[in-house]
Structure formats: C-alpha cells, structure tokens
C-alpha cells in the first residue's frame, strides 16, 4: 500500500538547514493499522505529510496505492488525495461555516466520485457510523471536541479512500473520547482501510497492528 524509499526532508530555516526526515524506508500493507509514535518535533507529522502528498521529499520516493506521488503537480496531488486519502487533523479543522453533513459532503463535491443526489445520504450515513448522525445539521462551533473529531473522521471517509491518515487525532480530546476515536480507527482498519496514525501517546498499542517509532527524523523501530 505504502512504500517510502530513502525519504529525506530538509527545511531551510533562519538558523540553517534542518533535517525533519532522514533516509526513511517504510512499507505499510493494505488494511494495516500503523501507529507512528514519537515526541513532539520528532518528524511524525512530516512523515504523514509525505504520505498524504501535503509535503514533498527533498530526496527519495513515496509510493502510495501504486502511485509515485512526489512528482505529481499540486492539482494532480489534490485530485489524487481526494480519491485515495482521508486526513484527520489534531484540531479537527472543520470548516466553521458548513454544517457537519456539509463538511462531510465537501470532499465528495471536490472529487465528484459520488453522484450528487447520494452525497447528503452518504454523509449522514457516515456521521451515523461515527455516532454523530443526530448532529448532521449543526455547525461545528455547537459541537464538543469529540463530536467534531468524529465529524472529521466521517469527512475522511467521505470518498471511501483506501488510506486514512490521522495526525494526533486524540491530542485534543479527553481520555474517554480519545479511546472511542481510536476504536473507530480500529474499526476502519478491520474493514480493510489502511490507517496510519501519528501520535506521541504510548498507549495506542491496544488498537494498532504495528508501531513505528520515530526520533529526530529517523525511524528507530518498525
């Protein structure tokens, strides 16, 4: 599903060059639930950004679902992402002026893969799947953090992507809600979706298939 080959990412900063990722080799199988674990600043988010095509490697290659994404243009990457990747952010990042259902419909509108008439129905079904169906027509500001993250997960599943990436999805939630959210990801993986979560929390062992430890931009343990 995912193959990273000698991926290095270096940023130019006022203090000089900073290597966020150093010669990363990584393979993730389809349907696998991988937890990328590391401290803040270790390179977890950068690694996830590489997988989503949000950022490009300075060297090396990233192949996701058979596509070498590092050479795609921004627009092609956006289209590819819409169809192949669901992304969940730490701060939910729901669009504040759209309702929960509309937030979920947004990726469908972008990619156009779901017929127009079915989009609302599908969005509500996804919201029900993550247990926030009752909040379909509410604006994000009226939802709790956990509810917002569930909506974000429903949004990530909008186009039924083979890969879901989540960057610290429980970092802003209380422990009970965090547990429920992680269970949702587990359920996704059980249904065949490849899931990669970046987290600095160590207690995700119970839900993930494999743990990848990262420190100072290098993988310590796969």
């Amino acid at each position, binding site marked *: 599903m995912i193959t990273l080959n000698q991926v290095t990412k270096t940023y130019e900063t006022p203090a000089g060059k900073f290597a966020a990722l150093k010669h990363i080799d990584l393979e993730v199988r389809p349907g696998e639930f991988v937890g990328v674990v590391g401290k803040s600043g270790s390179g977890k988010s950068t690694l996830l*950004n590489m997988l*989503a095509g*949000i*950022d490009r490697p300075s060297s090396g290659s990233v192949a996701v679902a058979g596509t070498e994404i590092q050479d795609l243009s*921004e*627009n092609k990457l*956006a*289209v590819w*992402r*819409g*169809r192949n990747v*669901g*992304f969940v*952010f730490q701060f939910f*990042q729901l*669009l*504040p*002026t*759209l309702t929960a259902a*509309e*937030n979920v*419909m*947004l*990726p469908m*509108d*972008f*990619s156009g893969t779901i017929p*127009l008439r079915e989009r609302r129905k599908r969005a509500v079904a996804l919201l029900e799947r993550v247990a926030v169906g009752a909040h379909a027509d509410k604006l994000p500001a009226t939802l709790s953090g956990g509810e917002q993250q569930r909506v974000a997960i429903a*949004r*990530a599943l*909008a*186009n039924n992507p083979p890969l879901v990436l989540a960057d610290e999805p429980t970092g802003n939630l209380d422990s009970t809600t965090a547990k429920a959210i992680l269970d949702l990801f587990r359920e996704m993986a059980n249904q065949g979706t490849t899931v990669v979560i970046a987290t600095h929390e160590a207690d995700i062992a119970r839900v993930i298939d494999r743990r990848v430890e990262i420190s100072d931009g290098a993988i310590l343990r796969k």
Partner: protein
Amino acid sequence: MNTLWRKAIRDFWHERARTALVVLAIALGISAFAAVLSSYAILTRELDRGYLATNPASAVLRVDSIDDDLVKAILQNPEVSDAEPRRSISGQIKAGPVQWRNLILFVVNDYGNIRVSKLVPEQGAWPPAAGEILIERDAFQVAQAKIGDAVLVKTANGVEQPLVISGSVHDVGQAQARMENIVYGYINLATLVQLGENPTLDQLNILVAQNRFDEAHIKRVVADVETVIASRGHHVRRIDVPRPGKHPHSDLTGILLLAMSSFGLFVLVLSGILVINLLTAMMASQVRQIGVMKAIGGTRGQIARIYFGQALFLGIAAVIVSVPLGIIGSRALCRYMAMFLNFDINSFAVPVWVYLLVAVIGIAAPLLAAALPVLRGTAVPVRVALSDFGLSQTTFGASAFDRALTRIGGTFSLIVFAIRNSFRRRVRLVLTLLTLAAGGLFFLSALNVRASLINTLDRMFAARKFDLSVFLANPNELEKIERAIGNTPGVVRAEGWFVTDASLVSRFTVVALPADTQLLDLEIIEGRNLAPGDTDAIVINNALAGREAKMRVGQTVVLRMADAESTWHVVGVAREAFSPALAYIPLNSVQQPRMVNSLRLSLANADSDVVKTDLDRNLEHEGVRARGSATTAESRFAFDQHMLMIYVFLIVMSAIIGGVGGLGLMTTMSLNVFERRREMGVMRALGATPRIVWLLIVAEGIVIGVLSWAIAGLLAWPISKAIGDLLVRMLFRAGLDFTFEPLGLVIWLLVSIGLSALASFLPAWRASRVTVREALAYE
C-alpha cells in the same frame, strides 16, 4: 447548491458587517458611474432631440434686406426645403427702476407660421401683438420682470418705447440668458416700427432639403443661395453654418459628462480596492481552511471558485443596490444640467445598454479586484497553509523600515503603538491610503482649481483697466463722444475704440484702439505690444494664434475687413484666458481714425448705473446712440457663473470619493481589529482597560487619516494643476494661472482626522466590548 457555494455565501454572512460595508462602497462607485452614464445617455439624446424638434436652421445668412421675391427665388432651389426671414437686433430693456439690460430682439413676421428654428410658447399670449414682447423663459431673471409688466425697450436709434411683456417662450437654440446676462425678446414687425426701426428683415434661416446633417453639403447649398441673393442685387454680410443637428451646447455637455463618467469609473476603481482589501484579509484568515480543503482533495481551481463566487456576489449585490440609486442620481443630474443649459427633458428613460454596461462593469470590477488575492491565497502550499497562524506570527521588526519605526517617539505611548500597528499590513495600508488620499486630492484639487480659476480671471480682468464698455449703434466722431464724456461726472478716463470683423481663414473680431492705450494692459507672451507710430502692426491673442496658423509673429497677413483687403504685420501675441479670437490694431491705422463705435471708460468710485444714465443722455445730446453697455463687473459675473459648474463638480466628486475612502478605512480598521483579537486579549489580560483598546484603534485610524492627508497634500500641487488645466482646456480651450489654496490643507486635515476617527469608531467600540476570555480563545 453544492457545499462550495454554501461556504461562499455563509462566509460572507459570517462577515456580514464587513461585507455590507464593501457592498456599500462598491455600490457607491457603481451608483456614481451609473448616474453619469445614464445622464450622458439621457442628456445627449434629449438635448439633440429637443433641438431637432425646433427644426433648426441649416444656415443663417445676414443679408442687407429680404423681401418675399428674394425668398421665393431662393426656394426655387430644390436643395432648399425652406427659407424664413427674420431679424435680430440689439437693444436695451428696462423694467421699472431696474437699470437698462442688454437685449437681443428677434423679429418674426408671422408667428403663426414659424417653420425653421421654431419657438416654443410657454405662458401668456402667443403670438405677440403690436406693442407686446415675449421674453425667453430663462431671461426673466435677468430682466427682473414678469408677464404683464410694462417695460421700456430701445434699440440703437434711441427711441424708448413702452412694451408689455405678454408671454414667455422657450428658444432652445439660444445660450442660457442668465449665463450670458442678456435678455432675449420676441416682437413682430409692427412693434419693430414702434421702436423706430425700418420694418425690414435681414436674417435668412435656410433649411436644406437633403443631407441635413452633412456640413459640406449645407455649405455647397448655401454657396448657391448666396449666388442667387447676389444676382438679385443684395449683399450677404455674413454666413453662419452651425454644426448640423447638434445643439450649440452639445459639445460642452458631452465633455462635462465625459469628465463625470471618467470620475465615476475612477470611483469604481477605488471601490475595487476595497474588494482587494476585503478578499485579501478573508484569504489571509482562511489560509488554514484552504489548506484543509486542499488536504481533503480540493484543487486550486475549485477553491478559487469559492472566493470568485464571493466576489461575484459582492458585484451582484452592489449592482442591485446601485442601479436605483444611480437612476435617482441621474435624474437629479439631468434636471440640474437641463436647468443649466435651458432645455426640457421629455423622457428620463435609460437605454438598455446603460443597464447592461453598468451590470457588466459592476460585476466585473469586484471579480477583477479579487483576482490577485484569490490567486495568491489559493497558491499557498498545503503544508504552509495548514501551519498558518495568522498575523500574530508575522515577524514585525524584520525589515529596516520596521526598525526605523521603533525609533519614532522614543518611549512607548498610544500614538507610537498606533503608528507601528498601522504599518503591520503594508499592502492593506497602501490601498486604504490610496482611497483616502484620492478623496483628499480631489478636495484639494477642487479648491485649487477654484482658486486658480479666480486667479486666472483676476489676471484677465486686471488687464482691463476700464469699468464700463459702451457699444454704439454706429461709428461716430470721436470729438462728439469726448464732449459727451466731458460732461459726464464720474469718468476718470475714456477711450474710443473701433470694433469690427475680419477674416483670414476664419472670422474673428478686430479691435482698433489707441496704440498707447491706458485702458488695456495686454499680457504679451510673444513679440511686442502695439507702439505709437505703428501703422500696419497687429497683435493677436492666443485664441486667434491657435486658430490661424499663418498668423505668427513676424509674418505678414492679408485680412479682409469691411469688404476691403489690407496687409498687416503680426508683431505680438497676447495671452487672454477664456477670450474669443481677437486681434488688436492701432486706431490710427483704420480708414477713419476719428470714427469709433465702442467706448471704454474708467470710473471714479461712482455708481456705474448713474454714469451710464448720464452718459446715455449726453451722448444722445450729441446725436450719438448707444446700443448697449456692460460693466466689467457684469462680465466678471458671467464668467463666474460659467466656472460654478466646475467647482460644484469637483466638490461633489471629492465628497463621494471621501465617502468611499471612509468606508475603505472602516473596512481596514475592522479587518485589523479582527486579526488582532488575541493580541487585544493579551493587552486586556495585562491590564488595558476597554477604553485604552478603543483609543488605540481610533488612534490607529487617525494615524492612517493623517498619513493620507500628507500624501494628498504632497500630490495636490501637480495633480490639481493637471486636473484644472485639463478641465479648463476641454471646456474653454484656455490655460490656467495655477495657484495653491493653503486653506484647503487645513480643512482636509480636519476632515481626514474627523473621517478616520468616525470610520474607526465602530470597529474600536466592538473590539473594546470583546471579553478577555473570548479574545484569548480566538485562533
């Protein structure tokens, strides 16, 4: 409606106060544009339509005398569809105790059968009977009389005849009486006889049969008519071919409206700047959302469509608001112009093309303005967009300019803080300053142009060392006139001049005056003035120099004057602003140097009316008839009236642009406050009271206002000179003696401070009401 459109609409609703401000500002721009464009369409149509409805003459020929046989002979020409004789004669009119006013009398033989250059009866009797006079509707104010009043009328022969004003007419083709300070009267032949004049008509109004709007064709037909007149032993003194189908004021109106349309477009551009400001801010505040949308599959084009959709919404909303406003404005403007130019508007219908053009420009302008911020905002890479933290993370202090700013003031104070804050969003600041400074520039220009016009007129009238001009009915011996003047108290100095027409390529006026005249101090810009001993010297004014290419200093020209040709040597060019084409020659070089037909008098501080009355009596005693007179003050009044429209135009422009600028500043301050909510929360947490937050924002607005004032003040000199020169050249084909009005700077500084305080009041008030918790929670 898909989610993209929903987002576009709800984002705007979320920011409805700012959106309303921008819609209002764009609507103001479009309204101004729509008003002038509609007025242009209505006025040009109605002016020419009203003029054409009078069946205006294709040509006017002044003949020694016209009888029925001559008219019949001319009508034999199949190219002439109509020929109608009239007479126009100069005179004076007096209503009650009011002084004599200059009068042009139009004599028509058969008022029931006017076919060419028709008059429109308005009120009272029609046609005028013997002993009656009709007055042009605009001239009542000049005559200071009303229908039913008895007036005294005299022509050059001096017979004072009481007439009754029996009605009013509208003579569409005449220049506005109030502006010209002249009365137009209409009488029949019997009344003309009562005035002691011969019952002859000497003006032939010709209407060509075909190609009525072809000037060359008209001139060919007129040449044939002239041949017929000559073959019957008559003499054509003068031929006038007005621009076919065009009201005499058509060009003036067109130029004025064109200038106004350009201004409307300018206001529209300024309001477009507000769209740039709003959308730039909106894009800045939505960078992370753009990142999220990209992260979940949105392409740049899809995301850009959301924001272009918002710009489209702004345009549509503004057009909807502005079209009715524009129509109301256009009606007011049309009514003012119609009153100003003395014509009637039958229909205020606005052509469809105006609506279409306004809609297209109104919608396209915000879209164009949105292009740069939207394209830049959507081009931000996803990773950068996702990690955007807004203004709080920008690094103020990185540039040398920032560091220079920190040296202003020395110690921290509200003003220092306000100055530094106002420079944080530089592009926004520049755009806001642009709109505010534009308002200031127009205001200062209005005052400067006004001061310059007054200065130009002052210089022009300073050259005239006389207070009173008297025009004689016929050339008279200077000795008689000198005797009459000698018996008139209050005259300090007097000169007799001889005024006539001459032609080279075009026709112009020639003034023969004493070479050492003490009553005219010409401003010579090339060559020299007339000098005693000159015999064939001629000095021309700049208007004539611009018209006659052959008349250059040092050149010899042959002029046709009084049916004879004479040779003249051009010795100088004089500058005379706003003057028609004129030439000056020594009085002793004319055939009869002791005969004059025009007097110039310098008066002691005497009442000019008393002097005029005494002089008229004394001239009559000498057998000399005056056909009219004008004080220099009256001439100046007429000029001031012409200039009034320029002042009004510029002041209205500056008010509208100032309004747009104020709305722009309000938008800017509202955006600045919005982006710095967290900072304000921090300040409040550190102990700043709501009042300090409020003062800080108002101070920032005032800093921007004062900056815009400084920019306007710096640019005012060259810009207002250019605007003044352009307007005056377009309207009067003359230059301007530029002068700067320093009072304008003081007034605009106060206006800028007031406007910016007012514009920042509301954002400041709202910011001061946000709780510390809300402000700190803002991300």
